């Protein structure tokens, strides 16, 4: 099975090519963002409208991870 490795909050995840970053975060067991009230949040709409899956990718904040495909070596972090 072809695979690709990236990290989410430092946790290494191995995914198939074509997998979105939102899915990688779920597989790593990491929340996508922490809400203004401090609660962990994960993807809701899966189609880029709810912004619940936004994360920091390679230092860039507020990326909608359900719309972004994983690339090797990506450094993904929970948005807070």
């Amino acid at each position: 099975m072809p695979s690709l490795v990236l990290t989410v909050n430092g946790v290494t995840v191995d995914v198939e090519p074509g997998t979105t970053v939102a899915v990688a975060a779920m597989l790593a067991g990491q929340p996508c963002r922490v809400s203004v009230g401090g609660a962990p949040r994960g993807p809701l709409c899966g189609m880029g409208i709810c912004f619940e899956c936004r994360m920091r990718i390679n230092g860039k904040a507020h990326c909608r991870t359900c719309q972004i495909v994983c690339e090797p070596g990506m450094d993904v972090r929970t948005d807070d």
Partner: protein
Amino acid sequence: MAAAACAGECGVRVGLVDDNFSPGGQIWRSESAGRHAPEAAGWLERLRAARVEPLCGVRVFDAPDPGVLLAETADDLCELQYDKLILATGARERFLPFPGWTLPNVMGAGGLQALVKNGLPIRGKRVVVAGSGPLLLAVASYLRKHGAELAMVCEQAAWGSMVRFGFALVAQPAKIVQALQLKKDLAGVLFTASSWPLAAEGKNVLERVTVSRRGKSETVACDYLACGFHLVPNTELASLLGCQVEYDFVRVDDFQRTSVPRVFCAGEPTGIGGVELARVEGQIAGLVSGGRIAEARDLFAQRKKLRNFAAALDGAFQLRPELRDLPSAETTVCRCEDVPYSRLQAYPTWRAAKLQTRCGMGPCQGRVCGPATQFLFDWTPDSVRPPIFPARMENLAALASSPRPEQQAVTGGH
């Protein structure tokens, strides 16, 4: 896709602007392995043959002048110029708040399906599917085919209204075939009408769901709750362009023309009717924009039949008033700004609540809580203002300093 292909086949230059990273919208989007539904593959081939230029991962956020759209890609800002514009912005799920709906792994029904298409392993996972509308069954069937264990499928509508919907299908043999296929796919799965989620619980992530099942509450352990209450149209861009919107939908004439010259609209924004209706409306809009009026007229009868189906659909899945009582005082209604139900009750209008509580002022711009509060409190949404999607500061700043960024001439579709 149908609009762009038909317009392209008329010989005009067409750009297909899509917010997603691959074409096909929510129904025909490809799986992570690159597989497309057979019908989608046919349209992709037509797009290639008609030399339609795909512009994927491009998100339109403003329409500063007639004939001009501003959009963002992952890294850039671009200006799209058009002679004619066809809006096919689709629909999103309606989400209704209930205690625990903000827990990770509680998501839309289409939302979970999209994530599975994008690589989420679902084999052996226990899933509750809940909410309303035909999408629930389609999602349940898809998840089951991919190995999910369906704990329960809860439809808030009563059997009676769905049976009436069934009668309306009699004039639609293709829909009956689909319905029978779904019935076969879901054999042995517990499908329960007049049922809805009361609460989702778990420590940091979903562990169990309590549902109201025909008047009795029942708790089910599960890994995912896939929950959406039918669909709401994405009309933000149409509204921004000044297109007349009536009863939540974009008004179009027989030729799919909106009230704004040179702007067409097709699919869910003109009325929730499903993929077949969206495709025919797209074909008509594409043909009319390319000047092939007679060919467009030939599709009117097909569209009329599918619109009858849409009307029946609308009647069958009306939301029951009990769903207004689902949120508790502490339940978050606006997920972006964490505004609880109790803080919203006091306000008479959406605008008043926005100004006082920041409800609807977060990144989703009310796309989630707007339809929810419309149902909960009978609030009507405000007018749409740019940017209709959050845009990066550097791009807004670039616009302010130089009103015309890089030029890219594009005709047609969205």
